[in-house]
């Protein structure tokens, strides 16, 4: 069997074994669904509550997308500004780091105090997601081949040409890596804020559904919602990976298999 087969088959096998074990444990021990629902019950809930959960998923995904786009644009634009005007970078980069290292769970309640809920959720998603874009773009802009920079200098390239024709294309692989991380993180940011909004929240996002189901001890629905969130995260990751591959497929080493 070739490597490709195993790379698909092994995780699938792990999945089926784990689900099988889960099902067996619940059934053999007669565990009631409000303690631990069996996989079948979770699937059934997913079908019965489908409408509700799916609507909630859309709400959360919408916030995630908004947060991601703002993080992508914000991260790249900030990185360019910090790079082009060094003093601005020196002045503000530490605060970008500070914002990043402060746990978002701790910031979210404050944001909910000061901002309308929908906006607070969005800001949370942005705060978590923008930093990897900023950091990766900065790294990319700073790692351009010095001789290529010298070449641009030789031909009297303007700062704008240097940025557009050299630095941004050269930084593209790092920018895309940053975006891939940011995709997952904006989902996390949105979820964290929805959970923090929790009981006070008027929201209808998926994380809100999880919190709500928790209060009502509707454990199967919690599992179903969690499953959807996880699936959403996986889809986001794959979409961004595919986008990255598409952008780099012609030239970057990461897009080619190593020849042996």
């Amino acid at each position, binding site marked *: 069997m070739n490597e490709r087969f195993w790379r698909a088959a092994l995780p699938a096998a792990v999945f089926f074994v784990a689900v099988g074990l889960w099902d067996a444990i619940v059934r053999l021990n007669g565990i009631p669904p409000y303690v631990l629902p069996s996989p079948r019950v979770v699937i059934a809930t997913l079908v019965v509550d489908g409408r509700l959960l799916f609507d909630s998923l859309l709400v959360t995904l919408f916030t995630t997308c908004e947060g991601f786009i703002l993080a992508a644009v914000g991260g790249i634009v900030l990185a360019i500004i910090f790079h082009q005007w060094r003093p601005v970078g020196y002045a503000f980069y530490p605060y970008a780091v500070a914002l990043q290292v402060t746990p978002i769970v701790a910031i979210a309640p404050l944001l909910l105090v000061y901002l309308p809920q929908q906006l607070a959720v969005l800001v949370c998603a942005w705060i978590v997601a923008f930093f990897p874009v900023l950091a990766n773009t900065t790294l990319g802009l700073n790692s351009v*081949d010095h*001789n*290529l920079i*010298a*070449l*641009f*200098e*030789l*031909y*009297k*390239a303007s700062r704008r*040409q240097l940025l557009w*024709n*050299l630095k941004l*294309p*050269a930084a*593209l692989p790092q920018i895309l890596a940053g975006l891939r991380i940011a995709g997952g993180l904006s989902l996390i940011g949105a979820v964290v804020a929805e959970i923090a909004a929790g009981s006070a929240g008027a929201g209808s996002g998926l994380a809100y559904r999880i919190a709500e189901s928790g209060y009502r001890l509707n454990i199967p629905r919690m599992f179903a919602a969690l499953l959807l969130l996880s699936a959403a995260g996986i889809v986001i990751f794959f979409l961004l990976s595919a986008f990255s591959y598409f952008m780099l497929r*012609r*030239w*970057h*080493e990461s897009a*080619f298999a190593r020849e042996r």
Partner: protein
Amino acid sequence: MTGSSPAILTLRGVGKTFDNGTVALRDVDLSIGEGEFVSLLGPSGCGKSTVLRIIAGLARASEGRVEWADRKHETGDIGFVFQEPTLMPWATVERNVRLPLDLAGVRDERASEAVARTLTSVGLSEFARAYPRELSGGMKMRVSIARALVTDPRLLLMDEPFAALDEITRFKLNNDLLTLWRMLRRTVIFVTHSVFESVYLSQRIVLLTPRPGRVFADLAIDAPYPRDEGFRTSADYAGYCRRVSEALQKAMSEATDA
């Protein structure tokens, strides 16, 4: 050959001290004639690349100055070939060669024409649409040379361009470079640490001492062109190589004595 043609540029008392205090060059006086093929030869760390960078305007001389024969020399008058091919991996061969023209805002048809002509002259017209990663080391270097030539520069600066290539490829590129030089009649300053390569290519070899670099000897290689593989095996060639090697030894020992 020194002085046989009017100088295109002259270095007067050029010195370079780096920020960390290293004295890379001291008192370099050097005159390059129009149309000459000159090699700067010396051990690594003797500042020959620094000389090239100062001429190109990529580094500033700490002392002395570079005088150009005619006051205004324009962007594109100097072509530079680095030790590495230094290509943009995201751009095709064509786009890479076209870069200097793009940066100068040259109009489309004129640029395409120049790119096509230059690619043909280095034998790469079939690879215009290829990406650098699809090319061999020698081919990448040809692209790099094409890019330096696309603006039709008066002066071509080459910084150990073939040092990283295998010998067979290097010999081939040596020959092709000589053919191009004879065809275009441009001035070439070629930095190398290979005695054999410098003798094979140049009309004149300027020998630099190591740390701080200064001109130790200025040797003429009077063998006629065209030079080809026959020259490589000739007694003439061997004689020049011996003389240059001896001079190099002397330059090295003098530097350690100092």
